[in-house]
């Protein structure tokens, strides 16, 4: 017999009842409390994936998110979720998983031929080989490489279930990352003093090292109990802090405990956004591998992972196991294996002496001191090891499992993101981070402290240092449960690489070998960041956590420098793979952005409107399911012939009040507003300081010191901020109050030759005749018994009014107008018809106010004040914005009335059609003429009125002649609007 098996029960086991799951199509059985990895091991599954480049068979190497090899795709009702480490996937009934990067199957992988070709696949292989010809990259090489070398396959699936992930905001005094002895102790001290504390740990089982040491179980349970009683302490298991984002903000991803769920459903996730005044990083260490030939064979596992599978899940990784170590900590695994009756063939230790070796020998184990494993042998899995003993003799030992331990590296990624200083610890042969006290403290083994009791002490002192930084004085240390003392220990002896024949891997996920690192250096990529990119060492889901430092040490040796001088690659979020769905949280699908609804939204719905998204707004496009030109033109022509009503409530509306309001508006608008008479409206044009048009709208003077501004729908928030910015920075002492009333007022345009007759039915207290209420008049009035405002303004080019009432009364007023107006010929019209009407009239909107046009370009230059300061005054007059070849607003018409226009069609000189002279911005069928009309931005356009040009849209295979005309296709003398 060989391979992994379950030999008993484990601490993490919740029940021995079988939990069935499916891996690569086969049904297996595990236990509640298993991870997918432990359940696979318990079933003797040794090969769980193929490697990235060479397609070598790989097994489970670790027991955490640092896992390089056992990446699987989870298949659930919402789709495929690739690249999940099996070591972090909790086993649930009905779970379905697949191995990755093998084709057609895991046992027989066609592409494993790459292994035999490996001398032709060195580091930087892709860059070197697939350089030429360049067209082949896109068509041939990349698809081939993507298929051959890759991780899991993403299934793009829209709309995950709305509840699959949520985002939650948290605030705390101290965030403790890691619930080992150091983190728990710090939390206990801080929480006992009444501070708010959040403890986040990536594991389902809290306690870190104390969870795996039977002597510490009582302490661990007692302390977790004490923490649970502290009202200000929250302890989150299965919660990985995935990044530090500055200013005390951290992201943490929590996998929610799985309840009784339908078969195959996946765990749901919660993204915590945590704001913390300080932090304790008690993130512990990650065990590292030793680079030696054969160190990637299935059956090789890190010693600490093996201890976790044994103690936590009752699983032995092999039947005859050998431990190769350079440190004391790994001995615990061998001693526990022996205690539980799983044979340990030998312990090979590179060091001459350690107290741990004495303890192992006392337990009856064979220890080869000052010895090393030269190679791990095997074809499909570990079969034997070749050991060189102290005397230099070579022994071949038959084993089916090799446990490696090259020492422990503090988990520094989070600390590095927080700008930690790194110092070298020779007793651990690793970099240890120190945080600036204003950010927090590092504690426990991440801080270079060895032993659990020492970690407790370090956690307590970290808490005290935080209290000092937060100026809380010394905290009372609460009573801790009794804890066992740490055993005497010896330092490790660095052991990065055993050189020999065969591939020695430093990065199992990306198949990076020690030879690749040396090649990178020889080819000039000797900076640690360059080497990383050249070899891909330390990239992707595992971030090279178990071999990163090993590879860097190999590079240091190759460069002939000390490892302390090699530096570390920059760490960035995320610390582990994060599903996009978890980042999106609720803000996906229908909730991606809020929806903004008009006050009459329901009425529009009931009357068959088709809606269009305009920014966040939902606006009625046309009152029909049929959105063709026929229905749009019917609405538009009805306005021209009789009368129409449309909802323009989405316009921005801003009240500006105060004795300096007129002067302030003179500064804001290019044209003068202080001279506006009470009860009158004026078109208003705003420039940016660079002289380009920002927005347009109307200004009504409602009182001596009281103005009402309207803005375009899209620029409502922009204009409000524009006003507030200049009011606060340049007019701080002025008597000007700006109030956004956009949502308070509903506003309807009533347009068409019959509009006066229609409104006369509902408007009281106001004579609408031309004499008393001429074009551009404004007044308060009662509309359908509701106090509101009437403006005689026209976007459509017809005799028209806009009425405004408080939005709460919008429905009653709108309904009343329609009820009384319909017999006279009134009908509602939508945004498309509104657009048709304004294009014919030559009114500009977003397509023409495109951030590049000046007032002159739009033919509005005459509005701009010639005296006095206003925003954009100086730069609007600069030479570059005057005439020349600038794109200017014109109208156009195809010479063939059968020919339609399209937005974006380019205009060219038909004699010399080599360069675009401009393009169509807006177009529509005409309401009263035959054929189409449009607006265009055309080079030196104002001087081209009357010319014929060629309009070309190569995308539509169209080219035809157009006549350039005035943009005012209809009623250029404003007779209708003044009727």
């Amino acid at each position: 017999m060989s391979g992994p098996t379950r030999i008993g029960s484990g601490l993490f086991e919740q029940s021995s009842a079988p939990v069935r799951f499916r891996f690569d199509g086969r049904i297996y059985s595990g236990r509640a409390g298993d991870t997918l990895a432990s359940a696979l091991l318990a079933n003797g599954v040794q090969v769980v994936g193929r490697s990235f480049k060479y397609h070598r068979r790989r097994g489970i190497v670790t027991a955490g998110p640092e896992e390089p090899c056992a990446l699987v795709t989870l298949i659930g009702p919402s789709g495929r979720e690739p690249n999940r480490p099996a070591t972090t996937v909790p086993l649930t009934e009905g779970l379905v998983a697949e191995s990755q990067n093998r084709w057609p199957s895991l046992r027989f992988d066609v592409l494993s031929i790459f292994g035999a070709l490996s001398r032709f696949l060195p580091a930087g292989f892709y860059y070197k080989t697939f350089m030429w010809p360049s067209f082949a990259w896109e068509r041939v090489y990349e698809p081939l490489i993507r298929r051959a070398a890759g991780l899991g396959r993403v299934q793009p699936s829209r709309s995950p279930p709305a509840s699959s992930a949520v985002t939650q905001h948290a605030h705390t005094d101290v965030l403790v990352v890691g619930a080992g002895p150091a983190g728990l102790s710090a939390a206990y001290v801080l929480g006992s003093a009444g501070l708010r504390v959040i403890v986040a740990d990536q594991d389902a089982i809290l306690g870190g090292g104390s969870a795996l040491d039977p002597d510490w179980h009582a302490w661990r349970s007692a302390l977790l109990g004490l923490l649970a009683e502290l009202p200000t302490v929250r302890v989150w298991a299965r919660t990985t802090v995935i990044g530090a984002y500055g200013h005390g903000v951290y992201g943490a991803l929590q996998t929610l405990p799985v309840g009784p769920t339908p078969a195959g459903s996946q765990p749901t996730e919660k993204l915590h956004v945590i704001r913390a005044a300080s932090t304790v990083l008690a993130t512990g260490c990650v065990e590292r591998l030793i680079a030696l030939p054969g160190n990637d064979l299935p059956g090789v596992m890190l010693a600490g992972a093996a201890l976790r599978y044994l103690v936590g899940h009752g699983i032995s990784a092999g039947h005859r196991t050998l431990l190769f170590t350079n440190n004391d900590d790994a001995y615990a695994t061998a001693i526990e294996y022996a205690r539980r009756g799983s044979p340990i063939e030998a312990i090979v230790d590179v060091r001459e002496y350690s107290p741990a070796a004495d303890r192992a020998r006392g337990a009856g184990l064979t220890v080869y001191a000052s010895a090393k494993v030269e190679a791990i042998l095997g074809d499909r899995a570990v079969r034997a090891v070749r050991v060189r003993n102290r005397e230099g003799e070579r022994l071949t030992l038959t084993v089916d499992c090799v446990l490696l331990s090259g020492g422990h590296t503090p988990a520094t990624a989070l600390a590095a993101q927080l700008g930690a200083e790194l110092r070298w610890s020779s007793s651990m042969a690793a970099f240890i981070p120190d945080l600036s006290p204003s950010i927090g403290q590092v504690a426990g083994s991440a801080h270079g402290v060895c032993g659990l009791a020492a970690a407790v002490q370090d956690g307590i002192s970290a808490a005290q240092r935080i209290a000092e930084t937060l100026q809380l004085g010394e905290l009372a240390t609460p009573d801790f449960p009794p804890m066992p003392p740490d055993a005497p220990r010896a330092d490790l002896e660095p052991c990065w690489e055993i050189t020999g024949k065969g591939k020695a891997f430093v990065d199992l996920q990306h198949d990076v070998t020690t030879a690749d690192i040396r090649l990178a250096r020889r080819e000039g990529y000797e900076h640690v960041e360059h080497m990383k990119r050249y070899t891909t060492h330390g990239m992707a889901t595992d971030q090279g956590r178990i071999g990163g430092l090993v590879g860097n040490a190999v590079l240091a040796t190759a460069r002939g420098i000390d490892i302390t001088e090699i530096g570390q690659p920059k760490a960035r979020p995320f610390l582990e793979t994060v599903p996009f769905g978890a980042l999106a949280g609720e803000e996906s699908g229908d909730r991606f952005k809020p929806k903004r609804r008009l006050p009459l939204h329901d009425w529009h719905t009931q009357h068959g409107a088709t809606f269009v998204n305009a920014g966040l707004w939902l606006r009625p496009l046309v009152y029909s399911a049929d959105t063709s030109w026929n229905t749009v033109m019917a609405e538009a022509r009805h306005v021209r012939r009789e009368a129409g009503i449309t909802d323009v409530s989405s316009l921005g509306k801003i009240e500006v009040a105060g004795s300096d309001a007129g002067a302030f508006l003179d500064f804001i608008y290019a044209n003068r507003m202080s001279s506006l008479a009470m009860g009158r409206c004026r078109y208003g044009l705003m420039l940016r300081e660079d002289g380009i048009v920002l927005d347009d709208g109307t200004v009504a003077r409602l009182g001596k010191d009281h103005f009402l501004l309207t803005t375009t729908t899209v620029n409502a928030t922009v204009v409000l901020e524009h006003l507030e910015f200049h009011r606060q920075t340049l007019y701080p002492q002025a008597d000007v109050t700006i109030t956004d009333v956009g949502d308070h007022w509903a506003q309807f345009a009533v347009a068409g030759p019959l509009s006066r007759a229609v409104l006369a039915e509902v408007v009281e207290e106001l004579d609408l005749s031309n004499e008393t209420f001429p074009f551009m008049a404004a007044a308060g009035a009662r509309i359908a018994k509701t106090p509101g405002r009437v403006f005689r303004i026209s976007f459509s080019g017809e005799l028209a009014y806009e009425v405004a009432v408080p939005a709460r009364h919008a429905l009653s007023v709108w309904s009343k107008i329609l009820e009384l107006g319909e017999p006279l010929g009134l009908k509602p019209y939508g945004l498309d018809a509104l657009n048709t009407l304004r294009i014919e009239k030559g009114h500009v909107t977003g397509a023409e106010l495109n951030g590049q046009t000046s007032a002159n370009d739009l033919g509005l230059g005459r509005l701009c004040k010639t005296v006095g300061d206003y925003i954009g005054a100086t730069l609007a007059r600069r030479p570059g914005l005057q005439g020349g070849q600038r794109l200017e607003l014109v109208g156009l018409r195809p010479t063939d009335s059968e020919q339609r226009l399209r937005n974006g069609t380019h205009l060219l000189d038909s004699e010399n059609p080599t360069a675009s002279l401009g393009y169509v911005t807006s177009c529509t069928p005409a309401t009263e003429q035959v054929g189409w009309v449009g607006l265009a931005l055309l080079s030196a356009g104002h001087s081209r009125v009357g010319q014929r040009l060629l309009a070309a849209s190569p995308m539509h295979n169209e080219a035809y002649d157009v006549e350039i005309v005035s943009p005012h296709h209809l009623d250029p003398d404003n007779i209708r609007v003044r009727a």
Partner: protein
Amino acid sequence: MLRILCPHCGVRDETEFRYRGDATTARPAADSGETAFARYVYDRANPKGWHAEWWIHVAGCRAVLRVVRHTVTHEIHSVTLPQAPFDIPVDAR
């Protein structure tokens, strides 16, 4: 993510604010001419280090704030109202 100490509302997330550009420049007098305005609109020091920026607290008190921020570390030195005196530290880094 920046956390900005609004003088009116307290510490708030960056997402509540809208960035509005360089706060080291001042609008020239009306008659200063094109060159002065071009400098005001276009010329930017783009410092690596301390910098003053306008941030508008659009989701809170709607105040325009001058935030002195380190463009490398994101450390915030001061947050003040437009008329308050402010200083831009000399970067010792």
